[in-house]
């Protein structure tokens, strides 16, 4: 598998790296498509009828989980998926470790367009420090060398293998999809200051600076290694972004600073109280007339029970313990509790911008929201992103 990563921080890959990355991506496709389809058929044809006879209604994701848990097909799927997930990080860590010194030279860029501001007083939240999120050893904040960036490099490479190309070139499709949604849906809206909360390496931040070239884009995260890497990555790609080490639940920005506050697949990694605090902070730092938008997993109340069970697998088995609790929330209420007007709530499902192209994307946005098996799910047949947000009045 040749990497799509073309910036200066691309890890030089030897044939073994390419072969192993290709294998792991192929394994994930097999698990998420073939084995996952087998599991669904097995559930419909065998597990569900039997469970119903035993008095399990199979109406909620928890009931479906309970019914399937003892079945061989679920065990095989889950066991293989767990190893495939571990292998994503293990195979890319091999190349990042090997090329560490080479990469190091490129991770100290002369800031040409953006900036990097670290703050060692930022406390790493337990939701990051206490668990190996996504089964990534050491999570995303850990440092193994002075001014370390390794977890950023691992993340950049891992999401490419993990997504088997489904995140698009530069793994930025989520950012491209959302920023272009805002551009096309609200053509009169010209944001001057944009904030990305929980940016990791900024792969979904850069599209905002590209879509709104006149705006000043700031990106925050608690983890220094991903910010060091993200800053160098952005400079290498010639995209101006200001990276700052900051906790999204305690932002150091003045009130009414930004025209847009957004995040990409961030909330579902946070405990509920942190989600609530962050949304209040987002409301505070937004200017009146500013826009909040969160690209996220679809809420449970919009999805069929089996799909909810399927999406929630990560809560139990992928070290993402807050995922299910988040999806169970009423997203409109989360925003109104944070200060946004109930009537301002918006949600949308979107095809992937970089895959379908501008015209098809525009056409899709004029239709109704679609919630189905492909919504929010990593699938070789495609994925539809989901987002929600509100204007601050």
């Amino acid at each position, binding site marked *: 598998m040749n990497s799509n990563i073309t910036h200066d921080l691309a890890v030089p890959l030897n044939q073994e790296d390419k072969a192993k990355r290709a*294998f792991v991506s192929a394994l994930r496709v097999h698990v998420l498509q073939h084995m996952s389809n087998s599991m669904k058929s097995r559930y419909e044809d065998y597990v569900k009828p039997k469970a119903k006879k035993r008095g399990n209604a199979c109406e909620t994701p928890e009931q479906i989980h309970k019914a399937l848990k003892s079945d061989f097909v679920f065990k095989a799927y889950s066991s293989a998926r767990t190893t495939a997930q571990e292998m994503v990080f293990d195979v890319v860590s091999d190349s990042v470790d090997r090329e560490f010194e080479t990469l190091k030279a490129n991770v100290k860029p002369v800031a040409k367009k953006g900036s990097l501001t670290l703050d060692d007083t930022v406390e790493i939240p337990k939701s990051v420090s206490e668990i190996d999120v996504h089964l990534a*050893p050491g999570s995303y904040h850990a440092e193994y*060398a002075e001014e370390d960036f390794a977890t950023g490099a691992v993340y950049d490479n891992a999401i490419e293998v993990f997504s088997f190309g489904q995140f698009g070139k530069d793994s930025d499709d989520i950012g491209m999809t959302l920023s272009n949604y805002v551009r096309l849906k609200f053509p009169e809206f010209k944001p001057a200051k944009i904030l990305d909360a929980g940016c990791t390496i900024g792969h979904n931040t850069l599209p905002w600076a590209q879509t709104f070239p006149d705006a000043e884009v700031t990106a925050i995260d608690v983890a220094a290694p991903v910010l060091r890497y993200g800053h160098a990555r952005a400079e290498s790609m010639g995209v101006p972004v200001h990276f700052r080490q900051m906790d999204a639940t305690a932002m150091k920005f003045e009130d009414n600073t930004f025209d847009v506050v957004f995040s990409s697949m961030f909330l579902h990694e946070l405990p509920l109280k942190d989600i609530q605090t962050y949304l209040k902070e987002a409301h505070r730092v937004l200017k009146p007339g500013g826009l909040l938008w969160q690209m996220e997993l679809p809420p449970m109340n919009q999805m069929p029970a089996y799909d909810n069970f399927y999406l929630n697998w990560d809560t139990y088995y992928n070290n993402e313990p807050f995922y299910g609790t988040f999806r169970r929330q009423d997203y409109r209420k989360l925003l109104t509790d944070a200060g946004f007007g109930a009537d301002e709530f918006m949600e949308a499902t979107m095809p992937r911008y970089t895959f379908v192209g501008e015209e098809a994307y525009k056409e899709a946005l004029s239709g109704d929201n679609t919630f189905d098996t492909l919504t929010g799910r990593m699938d070789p047949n495609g994925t539809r992103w989901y987002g929600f947000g509100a204007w601050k009045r």
Partner: protein
Amino acid sequence: MRRIPRKRRGERNRFFQAEGVDELLSALLRLSAELSALKDRVYIAEKVLEQQGLNMSDAIEAYELSTEQESELAANRQRMIETVLAQFDNSGDVDAMTDENSKIEAAA
């Protein structure tokens, strides 16, 4: 040199009731990755040699490994065994295990 840890904190999820089945599947998949990478390499080697006009099969059968080459292959073999059996090792950390072996050897 390994800087980034390979061992995850906390207990690994077990799906199969019988002890060792999840670990065996993990080992099997990791072994498959090694084998797949090797097959890719052999395929590329064949193509490179064909480009050079060499008959690979005959040349391989006639080749004699030097002592240094034997040692290199032995080290690769050891690394592969440690990788494949990572889930059966308590530490789960290949380098730590290697260090432990070195200590035992040194003590002996």
